[in-house]
């Protein structure tokens, strides 16, 4: 007895022929080819490419099966193979996006729904205990002795790098709450490393009372929670882009810590921020979820010399080596680190590491633009 299907892994960067065939198969299934995929599992039957599934780090993408071969065992084998390949490459915690009508299929493949934008998209992970044990760990960090009606705040920052603007927002929020939970985005793809970002935040919030500093996670402002790719592919734009990330926060993270308010900085004339903050209000406060609402508090950014302080402005100044102006925007430890470690990383004539080119495969553009 033998299998009629031949499965193997393909690195699209090194095989133009395979890449062409994968592109054609995806096209025939109404899907776009994703440039960031590092490896595909492909399946051939009698030499013909009949199925594929790709991995961008720990996110499963571009799953397609020849329409003639759907409904049989091929899809289950394909999913088995992609999961094995991910493990081999060191990724055991996997995510995928799918349309809600396909959720039951992926549930049969060991994936569990995390958040759904009804009618549009569902984010799934390949473990029944992932979000649950993450929330258990958060719950264990809940401060004791707070009154039941306590005002508990939450802030998520990337701090790339940590500025006086971040510091101001944190202090302000802490003063207005009974307790504040501060998260540093852990996806380590920004200009300033996660280790450095976290250390600078830790240093910068020292002494602020009633505050817990948390490491970020895959469940919060990560490549997994911002499905840029999926929405581009499906032509879904606007309201949904940030919905999955915000629903995860409202439905899982906020209840685990009892967070009642989320603080966010705002720039009065920035359209992107305005839109993002409107999304935040819609998904955290609106009727899109049965979990308790989280009130969104917008705080105008602190200014230095007339312009709001933002991390992207600091990076821009670093690029033009304008250290004097940076000094006025960041706490001293940030300044020292930028001067000693990061200034030398900016090479003349090299591709811009700070613009969209360097940032696009880092945090989702939308999260960056929104000032997280």
């Amino acid at each position, binding site marked *: 007895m033998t299998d009629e299907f031949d499965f193997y892994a393909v690195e699209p960067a090194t095989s133009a022929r395979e890449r062409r065939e994968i592109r054609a198969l995806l096209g025939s299934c109404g899907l776009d080819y994703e440039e960031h995929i590092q490896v595909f599992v492909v399946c051939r039957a009698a030499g013909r490419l009949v199925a594929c599934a790709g991995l961008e780090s720990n996110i499963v993408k571009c799953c397609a099966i020849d329409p003639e071969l759907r409904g049989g065992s091929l899809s289950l*084998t394909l999913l088995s193979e992609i*999961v*094995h390949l991910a493990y081999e490459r060191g990724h055991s915690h996997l995510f995928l996006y799918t349309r809600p009508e396909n959720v039951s299929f992926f549930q*049969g*493949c*060991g994936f569990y729904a995390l958040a759904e934008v009804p009618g549009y998209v569902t984010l799934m992970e390949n473990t*029944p205990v992932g979000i649950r*044990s993450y929330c258990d760990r958060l719950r264990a960090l809940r401060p004791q002795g707070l009154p039941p009606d306590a005002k508990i705040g939450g802030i998520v920052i990337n701090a790339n790098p940590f500025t006086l603007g971040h510091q101001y927002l944190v202090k302000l929020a802490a003063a207005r709450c009974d307790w504040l939970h501060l998260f540093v985005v852990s996806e380590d793809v920004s200009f300033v490393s996660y280790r450095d970002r976290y250390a600078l935040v830790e240093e910068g919030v020292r002494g602020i009372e009633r505050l817990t500093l948390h490491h970020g996670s895959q469940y919060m402002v990560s490549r997994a929670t911002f499905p840029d790719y999926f929405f581009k592919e499906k032509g879904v734009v606007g309201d949904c882009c940030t919905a999955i990330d915000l629903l995860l926060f409202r439905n899982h993270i906020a209840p685990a810590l009892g967070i009642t308010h989320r603080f966010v900085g705002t720039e009065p004339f920035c359209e992107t921020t305005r839109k993002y903050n409107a999304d935040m209000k819609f998904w955290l406060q609106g009727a899109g979820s049965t979990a308790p609402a989280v009130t969104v508090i917008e705080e105008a950014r602190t200014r230095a010399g007339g312009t709001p302080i933002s991390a992207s402005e600091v990076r821009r100044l670093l690029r033009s080596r304008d250290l004097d102006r940076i000094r006025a925007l960041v706490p001293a430890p940030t300044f020292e680190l930028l001067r000693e470690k990061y200034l030398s990383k900016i090479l003349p004539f090299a591709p811009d590491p700070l613009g969209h080119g360097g940032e696009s495969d880092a945090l989702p553009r939308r999260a960056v633009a929104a000032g997280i």
Partner: protein
Amino acid sequence: MKIVKEALAGTLESSDLLVKVSPGPGTGLEVVISSEVMQQFGLQIDHVVRDTLARLGVTAGLVVVEDKGALDCAIRARVQTAVMRGAEAQTIDWSALS
């Protein structure tokens, strides 16, 4: 055996199962089973999985099973393989497998 790293064994094909093991967040043993035949055979599957783990001396970690209607012998085999992969076992104690 001690599970020291994440490991996987088996497939999602019919009559097979996918077993994932990991050191786990807590100190104890957690077994999570999902099966197409949970109603009729959930307890039986749970028993086979735990019995297999006990024979291998696994007392801690997280074991996740996605069952596709596998026979007991396949359940045992996949659990044993996943544990050995996750324990980075160099030698096999066959008597613990039968």
